[in-house]
């Protein structure tokens, strides 16, 4: 879809300031938590106190009589229909059973937040406690309590979803999804390999910690039209989720996306159903905002994993086979893209391995449900694969960078599963990271460097639409159903639109994320919007430009082929004085045939990655995202504390539409990843979260942000707007493994269970050097 050559570009590829920078810096944007309507009520949710129990009675009588309480609903009042984003396994409010501490049992609406809280406290629940299971490996044992009866049968889930993701297949006990990928013959390859290496790893649970909590306001008109203002990442998906729950046409619901104070995968779990159900019951607007405690208890989490890796390697350092077994813990319900699908894309690492077998299980336990978390499991897999790669290199006596370079994806490489990879900037990322890290230079005692390579699958199969509307004053309204969640999307889309149309950036006004006024978009997830929404906008702008040229040609009495556009003017190529301004032309068009200009564009793409079974036809794939992380650390051998000296994060983004925004994404994601693997861990006791506050949960502050070297690599992506790909999730993927490798390089210990805490480092050091550390310095 080339219409302009790269050399002529004036607006994309430039670090223009974010369009919302001034408003955000001055506090002038309206977030989800800021929404209000006259006469609105406050909603609150009453939660299960037990991890697994039969509900005998939910007594709301005391709550209902509290002055100011307008209504109370329980599982009996909500539609008797299971819902879920990919697997329908839960009710809008618990019925008959609760499966985790914090599961919503009832909801109340009252005149203010304090009254609603009092009402929640007044709700009395009688339970019959059931045996619970908290460990993902214990959950798949025959003796484990069964959380959802459906997993005991051979039948596949009756997914209501419009999903294009393959779900189903044979289940096991408490296994809600299983995916097996086979390519080549791993067993034969292991038998033939010169060396076989095996190891096991595990990752921990973190919470998204978006600083703006979940917030939604719902209102119902007399005619039954439902309007929801929410900081959701995916307004259209929410609309269809609510339409399913309420059994109404999607268009009876309008979801208006507000400004979003961070999402990271959490803000799309359908939490808005509570204010909607309450508003329907009370006939008044209802607002709800989660507290920070609630975010930890019921705001959903990342998906921890146990991962076993086995690799067959030839004497010359070529990897010939890899088998990976993964168990993922989704908690009590499956409410996100099942990360068990992640091995389709990541489990071989970024290497040309001819024989692979991956087995991936998603398992229920009695804990707060997990959902997508920035990176969608890529970081868990990289934690295993990339530390395993380092270990193999060291055992073979090879330099870890050299070993990777031997096996790494290059232009035209065949991925396991048969994708022929195009637009691969991985090697350049690795070489530039190694150089920035001064790889191979002599190092001081207790200092070390580590590196990790990774990719992220192409975008999820999904759609974006856009409309470009030229106003009578010549300014442009860009309509897109995509959402700005802090990543800078609005600015990127405006840049794409302005470039393609040939108008100034300032003349673009973007209206986004409103199912009542903007065309369909699958929303902000999976790093998809730059590419998908960017393509849709570019096509819409191209369509509008063609109409502009046609109309201008008529007015100027020249052929449209002889016309060009720049900075809001249409002129004859070679004689710039002969032309018409877009404002003049558009005004004329508003008063004559063919009428105002409306360009439209839509784009469907993604959803590839490797197939589940061998023998699928080889095909070219663009748009895989590649990156390399390098870390330098210093380890305090007395305390186990890790000091980050440097982080290098290199990414092939295809083409940086706004380099400054790319760097912002890289830096933010790096800090998030460092905190994930060094500081953050949700701790549980009997299924109860014991550290649900920022006082006790290791959320990073500005002082925990080390220097980050961002490196942008640009290998043109034929399928992206101006060659671009997304970058939002990628930099988190390799951080954990790079850290673990750097710690190994520094002090020779291998941490296989994340996060890397000082306690674990110290314990490993003591195990490596028997004898108490406490007395060691007295001897020195």
């Amino acid at each position: 879809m080339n219409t302009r050559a790269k050399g002529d570009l004036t607006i994309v590829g430039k670090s223009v300031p974010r369009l919302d920078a001034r408003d955000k810096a001055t506090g002038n944007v309206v977030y989800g938590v800021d929404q209000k309507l006259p006469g609105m009520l406050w909603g609150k949710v009453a939660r299960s106190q037990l991890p697994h129990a039969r509900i005998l009675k939910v007594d709301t009588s005391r709550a209902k009589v509290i002055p100011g309480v307008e209504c109370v609903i329980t599982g009996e009042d909500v539609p008797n229909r299971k819902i879920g984003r990919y697997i329908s396994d839960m009710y809008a409010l618990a019925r008959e059973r609760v499966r985790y501490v914090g599961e919503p049992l009832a909801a109340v609406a009252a005149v203010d937040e304090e009254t609603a809280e009092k009402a929640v406290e007044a709700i009395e629940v009688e339970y019959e406690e059931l045996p619970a299971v908290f460990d993902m490996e214990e959950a798949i044992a025959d003796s484990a309590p069964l959380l959802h009866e459906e997993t005991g049968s051979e039948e596949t889930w009756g997914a209501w979803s419009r999903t294009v993701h393959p779900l189903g297949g044979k289940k096991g006990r408490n296994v809600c999804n299983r995916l097996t990928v086979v390519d080549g013959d791993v067993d034969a390859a292991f038998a033939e390999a010169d060396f076989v290496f095996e190891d096991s790893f595990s990752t921990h649970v973190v919470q998204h910690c978006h600083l703006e909590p979940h917030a939604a306001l719902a209102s119902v008109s007399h005619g039954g039209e439902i309007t929801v203002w929410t900081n959701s990442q995916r307004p259209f998906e929410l609309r269809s989720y609510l339409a399913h729950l309420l059994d109404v046409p999607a268009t009876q619901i309008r979801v208006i996306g507000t400004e979003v104070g961070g999402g990271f995968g959490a803000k799309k779990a359908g939490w808005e159903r509570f204010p909607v159900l309450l508003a329907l019951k009370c006939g008044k607007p209802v607002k709800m905002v989660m507290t920070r405690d609630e975010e930890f208890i019921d705001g959903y989490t990342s998906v921890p994993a146990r991962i076993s890796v086995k690799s067959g390697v030839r004497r010359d350092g070529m990897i010939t086979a890899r088998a990976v077994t993964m168990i993922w813990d989704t908690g009590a319900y499956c409410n996100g893209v099942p990360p068990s699908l992640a091995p389709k894309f990541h489990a071989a690492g970024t290497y040309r391995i001819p024989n692979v077998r991956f087995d991936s299980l998603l398992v229920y336990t009695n804990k707060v449900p997990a959902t997508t978390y920035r990176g969608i499991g890529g970081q868990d897999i990289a934690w295993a694969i990339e530390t395993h790669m380092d270990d193999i290199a060291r055992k073979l006596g090879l330099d870890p960078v050299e070993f990777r370079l031997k096996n790494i994806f290059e232009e035209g490489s065949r991925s396991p599963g048969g994708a022929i990879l195009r637009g691969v900037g991985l090697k350049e990322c690795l070489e530039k990271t190694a150089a920035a890290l001064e790889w191979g230079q002599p190092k001081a005692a207790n200092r070390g460097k580590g590196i990790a390579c990774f990719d992220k699958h192409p975008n999820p199969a999904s759609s974006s639409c856009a409309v470009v509307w030229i106003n009578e004053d010549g300014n442009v309204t860009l309509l897109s159903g995509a959402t700005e969640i802090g990543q800078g999307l609005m600015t990127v889309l405006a840049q794409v639109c302005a470039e393609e149309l040939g108008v100034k950036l300032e003349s673009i006004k973007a209206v986004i994320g409103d199912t009542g006024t903007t065309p369909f978009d699958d929303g902000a997830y999976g790093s998809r919007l730059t590419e998908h929404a960017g393509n849709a906008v570019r096509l819409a702008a191209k369509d509008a430009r063609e109409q502009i040229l046609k109309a201008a040609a008529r007015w100027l009495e020249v052929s449209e082929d002889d016309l060009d556009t720049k900075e809001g003017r249409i002129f004859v190529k070679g004689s710039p004085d002969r032309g018409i301004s877009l404002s003049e032309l558009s005004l004329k068009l508003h008063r004559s045939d063919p009428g105002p200009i409306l360009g439209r564009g839509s784009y469907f793409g993604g959803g590839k990655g490797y197939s589940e079974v061998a023998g699928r036809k080889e095909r070219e794939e663009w748009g895989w995202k590649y990156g390399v992380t390098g870390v330098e650390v210093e380890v305090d051998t007395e305390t186990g504390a890790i000091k980050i000296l440097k982080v290098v994060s290199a990414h092939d983004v295809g083409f940086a539409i706004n380099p400054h925004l790319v760097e912002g994404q890289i830096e933010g994601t790096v800090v998030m990843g460092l905190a994930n693997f060094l500081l953050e861990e949700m701790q549980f006791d009997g299924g109860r979260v014991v550290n649900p506050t920022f006082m006790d949960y290791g959320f990073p502050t500005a002082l925990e942000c080390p220097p980050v070297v961002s490196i942008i690599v640009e290998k043109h992506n034929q399928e992206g707007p101006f060659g671009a790909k997304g970058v939002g999730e990628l930099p988190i993927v390799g951080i954990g493994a790079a850290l673990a490798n750097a710690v190994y390089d520094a002090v020779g210990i291998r941490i296989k269970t994340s996060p890397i805490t000082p306690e674990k480092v110290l314990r490993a050091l003591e195990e490596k050097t028997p004898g108490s550390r406490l007395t060691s310095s007295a001897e020195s």
Partner: protein
Amino acid sequence: MEDFQYLRPATIAAAVLLLAQHKGKARLIAGGQSLIPMLRSRLVRPAYVIGLEAIPELKRIEPRHGGLRVGAMVTHHEVLTSPLVKERATILSDAEILVGSPAVRNLGTLGGNLCHNEVGADPPPALLALGASAVIASPHGERRLPLETFFRGFLETALGEDEILAYIDTSALPSGSVWSYLKCRQRSVDKAIVGVGVVLRIEGGVCRDVRVALGGVAPVPFRAKKAEAAFMGERPNDRIIEEAAMAAVAEAEPMSDAHASADYRRKMIGVFTRRALRQALEIKS
């Protein structure tokens, strides 16, 4: 947070009177850095909150007998930027810079910090090592308490329901005194996993005075008396330092929480006591 009535007395006497009037139903608020989270999580539900910000004498730092008198309402930021504190109680400045974040230090007060007695607070070990005392206002007048007996239990102090911590007094340090405050923590804003305050004096090569205080490892911050005994009267060297550090480890009974296990705390008591002693003595490691 539930509704409460906010009261704002202008004198210490008026504040004490209000406390006596609303006995059991009122809480004092200084900088709010501990109380507000407790109100939000409904750990406390007072009917009255008494703000002390209108009482001028609680907001002063004054010289006193070669030492200091610090008003309970002085903020952490004011303590750590005070030249008088820097000169006469440097260890307190050293501890204050490690309290929370700039926002917490701008709002939080020394008195509020001591009265909540949260585990891992930084000022207590520094003040214990200085031998500071608390001046308490009560309906029956003022009373003075060595800080060692001020901290009583988990989030508990010796303050009665109608009493206010008015001042912290420190006395002059004899010349030749050296000190160090060190903190083991994960994030910059965290409370201490272990906080060690050390003040000691060497005369003729021999340790003549020593106070070692630990925070973060038990419900109350305390003087590590066995560590002090191991050091007192000795000529400092690596062996003596190690013995003192091991004595500190032996006399602590640390607990586990979300920040660290008891085992890790125990190890860090040794490491940080050793490091604090070495730093005070300016021994390069």
